[in-house]
Structures are given as structure tokens and as C-alpha cells.
């Protein structure tokens, strides 16, 4: 046995774990090697030192603290702990879940026309329309036109307002509602609204009809326009408005309270002839003209036409003049509400 082998056996010797043969070999080596005997003595002293170390005692009160910690917490605390702890992990996850749900709701709402339609129908209930009735409509026909100093670029729009104000009180509410729709479709709409809020687009003076996008666009302006459109039919729910004076129940009665599906400008050389041609088209294609407003430089015509007949209408409008649709979504409703701004 070498010195190295002998010293490797010290631990087993001290612990009494050596076999008889190993023990005999080690004893034989130690009998002849003084250095290994000294090393073994130091090794034994080291182990003795370790085993003689003062025992460690747990601090006072340790048992009580453990028993207190082991006692089950009241159920509300356990519930809260389960919901929120560890908070660095669970709170961000819960916050992200709320955001995801919100985004999902908004996405589904925007992707589902039926939901949007149901929201549009909402203001027809008295409970919802009560509030807008208390708020004066900035450009409603009841506001005195004389208070507004006409400006050249507003002339067409204001003359339309005067015309819209002309019907008797029984029809005034409906007229103002229509006027609000048509104002939204006119380039003057932005100027008629509260200061600082821009129109959906900046058309040239006397330019094309700018109707707010309904289905194709998803920009924030769309939401603003929808809100305006919903706010427009304020007088519709008035109790004193005779139901007989209202349009017959039908798609136009609902659709006219919202921005048109299609809008555009029809530039013609002879407006009167174009209007006659349009009337024939309306009759032939099964459309219904629901509103017409004449101004010196343009005539606004609102009509409702079945979806399948709209392509033919668009073709025929191109024959009547230069048809420039500014709003023509790919997906059209069953009944398409069209607002034409006929200039010429």
C-alpha cells in the first residue's frame, strides 16, 4: 500500500467502514510509515474537532412561529392569495387578459354589421333620445338663420337649410333630421359643426359630396360621423310629432338616420334633364327617392335602391353625366341608401 492509498482510507478508518483486508493493509503501512501516522493523527483531530463543535440551537420562539405559519389562513385571505399571488406574475396576466377581452369585443363589434346596426337603432328609443332633445342642435332649422351671417362658400348649404326649414311644423322634425343627414354629406358639414372639428375630408369649394364612410373605413373619424348621425334624428322621437307625418315604415325610414351607404357627385351639363333621367332610372330600377334638396349650384338627392339594382344605377349615372362616387363600399346592404350631389 502506498502513502496515497493509505491516506485515502483515513475517512473509512475513522468511521469504522473499512473491511478486514483493507484494515490489515492500512495497519501494515502505518507500522512502517511515520509520516502517514502523523497525518492520520491530524485527520482524527480534525474529525474530533468537527464532532465536538458546540451544537446549534434554534432561536427562541421558533416553534411558535412555525405553528403560526402552519395555521390555515382564513378563506378570504386564501382566496385573495390564490387570485393575486404571486402578484408579479398574476397581475400582468390579468391585466393582459382584460386588454385582450376589450380588443376582442371591439373587433367583433366592428366586424359585425348587425351589431352596429342595432346600435344605430338604439337612439329611436325614447329613453335614449330624451337627452339629445334637451341639447340645442347647432344647425337645426329651429335656430334662426338670420343669426348666421352667410358667407359665400356656405351659401349652398345655408340655402338648403332654409329650404329644409320651410315645411310645416308637423314635418319640421323629420325635415331637420334629413337635413342633418344631408349636411353630413355636404362639404359644408364641417363648417356647420362645432368649431375646431374638421370635416371628414377637405373638398374643394362646391366639390364632390363627402359622405362619411360607413363600412369600408375604420378610422376614428368614422366613429365621430356615426355619433353625429345618431345625434341627428333628435326630433324624431318627440311625442308631439304625429306619426302620420313620418315616412312609411321601410328601409328608408331607418337608413335615413344614418350616413348613406353610397355617395358621390354627378356632374352634368343640364341638371334638369339629369334629374328627369334620374327619376326614370329610379322608377325603372325599383328605387325610392326619399329626399331632394335643390340649391342654386347643386341638387342633393337621396334614394334607396335594392342592392342588386345598384350596379345598373351606377352605370346609368355614368351616362347621365360624370359620376364620381366618393363613398362606395364593396359590401353593400340589401337596401342601399344613395346620396347624389348633382351639379351643373
Amino acid at each position, binding site marked *: 500500500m502506498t502513502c496515497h492509498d493509505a491516506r485515502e482510507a*483515513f475517512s*473509512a478508518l475513522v468511521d469504522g467502514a473499512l473491511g478486514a483486508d483493507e484494515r490489515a493493509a492500512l495497519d501494515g503501512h502505518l507500522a512502517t510509515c511515520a509520516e502517514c501516522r502523523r497525518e492520520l493523527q491530524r485527520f482524527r483531530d480534525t*474529525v474530533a474537532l468537527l464532532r465536538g463543535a458546540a*451544537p446549534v440551537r*434554534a432561536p427562541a420562539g421558533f416553534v411558535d*412561529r412555525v*405553528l403560526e405559519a402552519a395555521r390555515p389562513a382564513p378563506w378570504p385571505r386564501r382566496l385573495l392569495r390564490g387570485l393575486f399571488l404571486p402578484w408579479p406574475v398574476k397581475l400582468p396576466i390579468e391585466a393582459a387578459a382584460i386588454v385582450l377581452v376589450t380588443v376582442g369585443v371591439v373587433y367583433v363589434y366592428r366586424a359585425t354589421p348587425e351589431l352596429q346596426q342595432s346600435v344605430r337603432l338604439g337612439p329611436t328609443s325614447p329613453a335614449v333620445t330624451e337627452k339629445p332633445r334637451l341639447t340645442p342642435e347647432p344647425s337645426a332649422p329651429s335656430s334662426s338663420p338670420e343669426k348666421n351671417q352667410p358667407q359665400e362658400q356656405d351659401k349652398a348649404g345655408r340655402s338648403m337649410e332654409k329650404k329644409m326649414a320651410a315645411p310645416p311644423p308637423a314635418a319640421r322634425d323629420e325635415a331637420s333630421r334629413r337635413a342633418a343627414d344631408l349636411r353630413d354629406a355636404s362639404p359644408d358639414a364641417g363648417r356647420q359643426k362645432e368649431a375646431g372639428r374638421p370635416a371628414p375630408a377637405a373638398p374643394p369649394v362646391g366639390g364632390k359630396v363627402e359622405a362619411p364612410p360607413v363600412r369600408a373605413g375604420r378610422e376614428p373619424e368614422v366613429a365621430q360621423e356615426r355619433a353625429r348621425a345618431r345625434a341627428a334624428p333628435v326630433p324624431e322621437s318627440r311625442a308631439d310629432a304625429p306619426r302620420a307625418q313620418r315616412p312609411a315604415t321601410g328601409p328608408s325610414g331607418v337608413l335615413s338616420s344614418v350616413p348613406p351607404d353610397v355617395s358621390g357627385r354627378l356632374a352634368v351639363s343640364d341638371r334638369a334633364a339629369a334629374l328627369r333621367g334620374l327619376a326614370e332610372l329610379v322608377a325603372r330600377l325599383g328605387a325610392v327617392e326619399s329626399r331632394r334638396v335643390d340649391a342654386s349650384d347643386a341638387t342633393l338627392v337621396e334614394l334607396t335602391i335594392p342592392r342588386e339594382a345598384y350596379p345598373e344605377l351606377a352605370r346609368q349615372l355614368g351616362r347621365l353625366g360624370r359620376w364620381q362616387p366618393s363613398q362606395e363600399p364593396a359590401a353593400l346592404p340589401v337596401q342601399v341608401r344613395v346620396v347624389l350631389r348633382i351639379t351643373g
Partner: protein
Amino acid sequence: MEGRTGDDASLVDRLRRGDPRAFEELVIAYQHRVFGVALRMLGSRAEADELAQEVFLRVHRAVAEFRGDAKLSTWLYAIASRLCLNRLTSGERRMAREGEETLARLASGHASPADELERSELEAALHRAIAELSDERRIVVVLRDLEGLSYEEIAAALELQLGTVRSRLHRARMDLKEKLERFLS
């Protein structure tokens, strides 16, 4: 591997039945041993206190899973050792504080002032030398020479082969012998 003693078996049975008195008896019986392992491994009384509490709480929660093919003490040492080693390697551990009061408190109070001074110096050197061992050697020498576990119990607690236990223990003792050379005759 040694089986459970009669007392252990009775205590475990009562623990499984949810006897609160049994848990208290367990903590009273093993508090110093578990705390001692934690203190010698972590070197901080505060950390050792926290970790020893965690050991008993785990026992309290998991006593139903105790298989009973080992001594209750071995199971406790296994949990304590694993928690200590995890904490030492996790990086979440607070930095060991220099001059921890632990070392001085280990001295005996029965010696004369001169002997006490000498013994304190020796104890301080001993625990400093233990603290300087690698974690895997330190836990083996603590369980063997300070807590008195057998090779087999250490192998079971640390889930090591017997040969690995023997080897690490021998290396740890040789390291300590080198570090404590000046105190040895």
C-alpha cells in the same frame, strides 16, 4: 436503509390524521437539528430561521406523501438539504454577511475566560473553514460529522451514490485538515 422507529411511526400517523399536537411535537423535536443544518449551510441566522420554517411547513403540507421507508429525521434532513442547496445556487440568496454573529455564539459557556477565548478562536476557525468548503462537500460533512447521519442516510437524503458520499466526505475532511493545520497537535 434504516426504517422508521416506533416513535417516528406513531408521530407520522398522527401527523397524517391532522393532529395539531403531533406537528408541534415534530417541530420541538427537530427544530435544533434542522436549524443547525440551515445555519451551517447558509451562515446567516436570519436566513436559517426562514429556511428552517419553510422545511417544517413543507413537512406539514406533504406529510401524506411521506412513504415511510426512511426515518422521519432523514426525510427532514433531505428537505432541509435540498432547500439549502437550492437557495445557495439560486442567486436569490442575500450576500453572506462578514462577521456573522453565529460563529461566536457557537462557543461553549463552561470554559474559563482564557479557554473560552481559545475555544472561540478555534470554533471560529472551524466554522470559517466549513463555510469555505464547496456546497456539495459542506452538506456531506455537516450531515456526517455535525449531525451524525450514516453514509446510507446521507446518500438517501441527498440522492447520491454511497461511493460519492464517501468520496465527498473524505475530500471535505482533508480540506478542513489543511485549513485547521495550526490548531492541530
